[in-house]
């Protein structure tokens, strides 16, 4: 337990310090959201209707872009091999690393949502709904994305290949995240059903992600 806690503490500290780059994700999120009014026009009514979708897409892309930090730096300086050789099961170590990554890179996205909601003319309820769905959904993005990050580090290929592999897996999260926010804002459907499915997706990815990432690390590292 102490090993895992130390791992989490270490990862968060590295992510927040110089060269960690966790907060660049938030900056990217802000940039994507600011780009949207230029693309669709500064029509506030339209923006508030598209708002949840824009925020979700921005968060999805931002969390995708920060993912290659998850294993890459550790692989380069050799600490990933130490983690793989340690007595802590690799699955748990992967889960701990993903949790740290979510705390450093995923949670700031959720915190930034209310500010970005203002830019998109979202009211209180809508902003709250989007923030809540992002809070429930971003762990799923991190934990499924971790599989792609592990593949990228074992194949020495990142970037586009990882995006192509990870994005299809994150489509269900996007669907139910946006559906739940829309339901809370306007929809005739209830908020509970899509939100429960979103939570279920997060829980499933919490189980699948570490095992798949650990499997690809175990078989891929040499």
């Amino acid at each position, binding site marked *: 337990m102490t090993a895992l806690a130390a791992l989490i503490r270490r990862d968060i500290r590295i992510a927040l310090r110089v060269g960690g780059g966790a907060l660049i994700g938030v900056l990217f999120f802000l940039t994507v959201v600011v780009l949207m009014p230029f693309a669709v026009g500064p029509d506030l009514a339209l923006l508030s209707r598209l708002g949840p979708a824009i925020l979700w897409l921005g968060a999805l892309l931002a969390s995708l872009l920060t993912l290659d930090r998850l294993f890459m730096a550790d692989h380069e300086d050799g600490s990933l091999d130490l983690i793989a050789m340690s007595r802590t099961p690799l699955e748990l170590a992967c889960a701990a690393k993903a949790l740290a990554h979510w705390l450093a890179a995923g949670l700031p996205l959720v915190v930034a949502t209310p500010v970005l909601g203002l830019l998109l003319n979202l009211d209180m309820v809508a902003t709250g709904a989007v923030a809540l769905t992002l809070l429930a959904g971003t762990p799923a993005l991190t934990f*499924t994305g971790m*599989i792609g990050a*592990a*593949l990228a580090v*074992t*194949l020495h*290929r990142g970037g586009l*290949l990882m995006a*192509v*592999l990870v*994005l*299809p*897996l994150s*489509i*269900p999260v996007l*669907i139910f995240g946006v559906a739940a926010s829309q339901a809370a804002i306007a929809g005739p459907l209830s908020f509970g059903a899509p939100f429960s499915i979103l939570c279920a997706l997060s829980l*499933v990815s919490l189980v*699948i992600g570490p095992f*798949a990432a650990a*499997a*690809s690390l175990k*078989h*891929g590292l040499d």
Partner: protein
Amino acid sequence: MSLIDLANPTRFLALSARVLPWLAAATVILLTIGLYQSASAPDDYQQGATVKIMFIHVPNAWLSMFVWGVMSLASLGTLVWRHPLADVAAKAAAPIGASFTFLALLTGSLWGRPMWGTYWEWDARLTSVLILFLMYLGLMALWRAVEDPSRAARAAAVLTLVGALNLPIIKFSVDWWNTLHQPASVMRMGGSTLDKAFLVPLLVMAVAFTLLFVTLHLAAMRNEILRRRVRSLQMMQASQKAA
């Protein structure tokens, strides 16, 4: 003769060379029978002649999922038993599966235009099959991105097994959500709702398509083995030249 005996690629090549002509002949015969029966099946009282798209669409859709299932088994073979032919099987199946999925989407779209009034609808069944198609393409990109086949094989195996989660979602999407796509009508509790005049040709076509897949898959596996041999020979030659 067990699965482990086939681990020797030479033995596999010899055996598959003997089996392939018979499989190909059986495929052609069954496809001919199936296509004839489909063409002579009666028109539906509501859908008219367009119902015949079903005989192509449904086997393609079944095969798109079946191939991913085969790839998942092969991936288990790669990761658990390190069977040397398992990754060849997985790699060879991906483009075939992608083709079946594409054909299922295409024929479904052509069928949807007269029946639903639209080529495409973002409902659960169509979306999940589209995701399946994207995952096939992603896998093929992964295979192409890495030079070392065994390294690519293990990565692709992990991804295939994760992607297998999509299969039950596709299968049950029509039951879980209110979709435009009709619910299961052939393989369901309490027997098929399909009339015999349609069911028999459909089943013949399904068997024919499965045989088609097996034939193509075996041929593709043979090609892949030969391709790897050529590759290792070329590398040997190159290293000799360098020395």
